[in-house]
C-alpha cells in the first residue's frame, strides 16, 4: 500500500509540475488564435516527452548516469561542449521567463510593483533551493501546481463544441496564416518537450537513487504523470478556444489566461488559476536553475546533487545561484517575460535533437543497459520523435521570423 501511495504521490507531483510558463503562453495563445485546431500538436509534444522522459529515467536507474554524462561521452568533448553551451543558453532564457512569470502572477494577485516582486521571487527561490529537501521541493510545487486543474473545469463549463474539439485531435494543415500556424505547431511541441525537463528528470532519478527495481515507478511517472499533465495543456487550449476566439481576444498577457478561468468560475477560479500559475512556474524555475547546474557539473565532472550540502558540492551550488541571478538580471532589464518565453521555447526547439539523440543511443547500448535496453516500441517512438524534432528544429527560427512571433 505504501509503495502504491508513493507512486500516486509521484504522479500527482508530475501532473502539477508538467506545466510551465511556455506551456501556459503557447496553449492559451494557440487556443485564442486557432481554437481547437492545434490540439493534435499538444498530443505529439506530450507523446515525445513521455517517450524520452521514460528513456532517460530508465538510463538513470540502470546506469546511474544523467543526461549530460551521456552527452559528453556519446558526442565527444567538442560537440558535447556545443550542446552544453546551447543547453545553458536555453536554460537561462527559460529561467528568466519563469522568474518573470512568477512576478507577473504575483502582481496580478497582490497589485504590488513588478520589479519588487521580481526581487521577492528571486529571494524566495534561493531560500527554497537552499533550505528545502529535494523531495519536498518536488512535492510542494507539484501539488500546489495542481490548482491548474481549474482549467479543466473551466474548459467544461465554457461548453465548447465537443465535435470541433474531437476534430482538433486530427492533424490538419490549419486555416488562416500558414506561417503563424506552423509557428504554433513548433511552439507547442517545443513547450511540451523543453529540454530542462529531461535534464532535471534524469538527474533527479540519480539523486533519488533509482535502481532497476524502480523502473515501474519511472514508467508510471512518465506515462501517467505526463499524460495527465498534458491534459492541463489541452484544457487550457480548449478553454481559450471556447472563450477568447469567438470574442476576437488575443492571449498575449498572463492576466488573459487567468481571465479564462475567472469567466466561468468567478473569483475562486481566478484565485486558483493564479495560485496554480505561481506554484507551477516557480517549480519550473527551480527545475531549470537546477538543470543548468546539473548540466555543467556533469559535463565537467564536479560533485553535484541537492542531497549534498552546499559545501559538499560548491561549484554546483554556485552554478544554480549564478543561473538564478543571471535570469533575474535578464528580466530586470524590463524585457517582456512573455516575449522571453516565446523566444526561449523556439530556441529550445533548435537544441532538442542534441539533447535527445544521445539518450536514444545510450538507451540502445547493451553494455550500459543490459536487459533494460530499448525494445522495438521504445525505438519506434524514439526514432519517430527524433525525425519530428529534426524537422521542427530546422523550421523553428524561420517560422518565428516569417510569422513575426506568431503575430502574423
Amino acid at each position: 500500500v505504501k509503495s502504491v501511495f508513493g507512486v500516486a504521490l509521484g504522479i500527482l507531483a508530475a501532473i502539477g509540475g508538467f506545466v510551465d510558463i511556455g506551456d501556459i503562453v503557447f496553449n492559451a495563445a494557440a487556443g485564442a488564435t486557432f481554437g481547437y485546431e492545434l490540439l493534435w500538436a499538444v498530443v505529439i509534444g506530450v507523446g515525445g516527452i513521455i517517450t524520452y522522459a521514460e528513456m532517460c529515467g530508465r538510463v538513470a536507474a540502470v546506469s546511474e548516469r544523467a543526461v549530460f554524462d551521456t552527452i559528453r561521452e556519446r558526442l565527444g568533448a567538442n560537440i558535447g561542449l556545443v550542446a552544453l553551451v546551447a543547453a545553458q543558453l536555453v536554460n537561462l532564457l527559460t529561467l528568466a521567463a519563469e522568474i518573470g512569470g512568477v512576478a507577473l502572477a504575483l502582481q496580478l494577485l497582490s497589485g504590488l510593483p513588478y520589479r519588487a516582486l521580481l526581487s521577492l521571487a528571486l529571494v524566495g527561490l534561493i531560500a527554497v533551493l537552499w533550505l528545502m529537501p529535494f523531495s519536498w521541493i518536488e512535492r510542494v510545487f507539484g501539488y500546489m501546481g495542481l490548482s491548474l486543474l481549474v482549467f479543466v473545469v473551466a474548459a467544461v463549463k465554457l461548453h465548447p463544441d465537443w465535435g470541433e474539439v474531437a476534430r482538433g485531435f486530427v492533424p490538419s494543415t490549419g486555416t488562416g496564416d500558414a506561417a503563424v500556424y506552423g509557428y504554433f505547431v513548433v511552439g507547442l511541441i517545443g513547450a511540451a518537450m523543453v529540454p530542462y525537463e529531461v535534464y532535471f528528470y534524469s538527474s533527479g532519478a540519480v539523486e533519488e537513487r533509482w535502481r532497476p527495481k524502480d523502473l515501474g515507478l519511472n514508467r508510471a511517472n512518465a506515462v501517467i504523470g505526463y499524460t495527465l499533465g498534458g491534459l492541463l495543456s489541452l484544457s487550457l487550449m480548449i478553454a481559450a478556444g471556447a472563450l477568447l476566439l469567438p470574442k476576437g481576444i488575443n492571449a498575449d498577457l498572463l492576466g488573459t489566461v487567468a481571465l479564462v478561468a475567472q469567466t466561468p468560475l468567478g473569483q475562486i477560479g481566478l484565485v486558483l488559476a493564479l495560485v496554480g500559475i505561481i506554484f507551477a512556474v516557480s517549480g519550473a524555475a527551480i527545475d531549470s536553475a537546477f538543470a543548468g547546474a546539473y548540466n555543467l557539473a556533469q559535463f565537467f565532472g564536479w560533485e553535484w546533487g541537492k542531497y549534498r550540502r552546499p559545501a559538499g558540492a560548491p561549484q554546483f551550488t554556485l552554478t544554480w545561484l549564478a543561473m538564478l541571478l543571471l535570469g533575474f538580471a535578464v528580466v530586470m532589464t524590463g524585457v517582456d517575460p512573455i516575449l522571453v518565453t516565446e523566444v526561449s521555447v523556439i530556441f529550445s526547439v533548435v537544441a532538442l535533437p542534441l539533447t535527445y539523440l544521445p539518450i536514444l543511443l545510450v538507451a540502445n547500448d547493451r553494455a550500459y543497459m543490459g536487459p533494460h535496453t530499448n525494445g522495438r516500441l521504445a525505438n519506434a517512438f524514439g526514432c519517430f520523435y527524433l525525425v519530428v524534432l529534426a524537422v521542427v528544429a530546422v523550421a523553428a527560427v524561420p517560422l518565428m521570423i516569417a510569422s513575426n512571433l506568431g503575430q502574423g
Partner: protein
Amino acid sequence: MRRRLAVLSLFLLLVSGCAPEATPDQAEEVGSVAAEGALLAHEVAEGESLGAFTTVHAQALAERLDRVVVVIDDPRLGRIATRVDAALEELARAPDDRRRALLLERRLARAGEAAGQLAR
C-alpha cells in the same frame, strides 16, 4: 532626409487615393483589447473579481493599446482607441465599483464592435 520622407509619405497617400485607413491588424488589436476589457468589467460588475487583479490587468491592457495607438492613422480608429483607453483607466482606478463597471462594460463592448466593423 525628413523632407524626402514627408514627400514619400505624401506620394504614398496620393497613390492610395484616399485618407489614411485603419489596417485590419490595428483595428483587430483595438477590438481585442476592448473585448477583453469588457469581459474584465463584466466580472467586476458581477462582484467576481479581485481589486488588485482588475487594476493590474486593466493597466496591462491599456499599455498594450498604447503600443497600437502610436501607429494608428485612421482618425475613426484613433477615437475608438481613446474611448477604450479612458474606460480601462477608469476601471483600473475604481476596481471595486460594480455599478460603474457595468457602464464601462457596455462602453467597451460598443467600442469593440465599432473596431470590429473597421477591421472588416
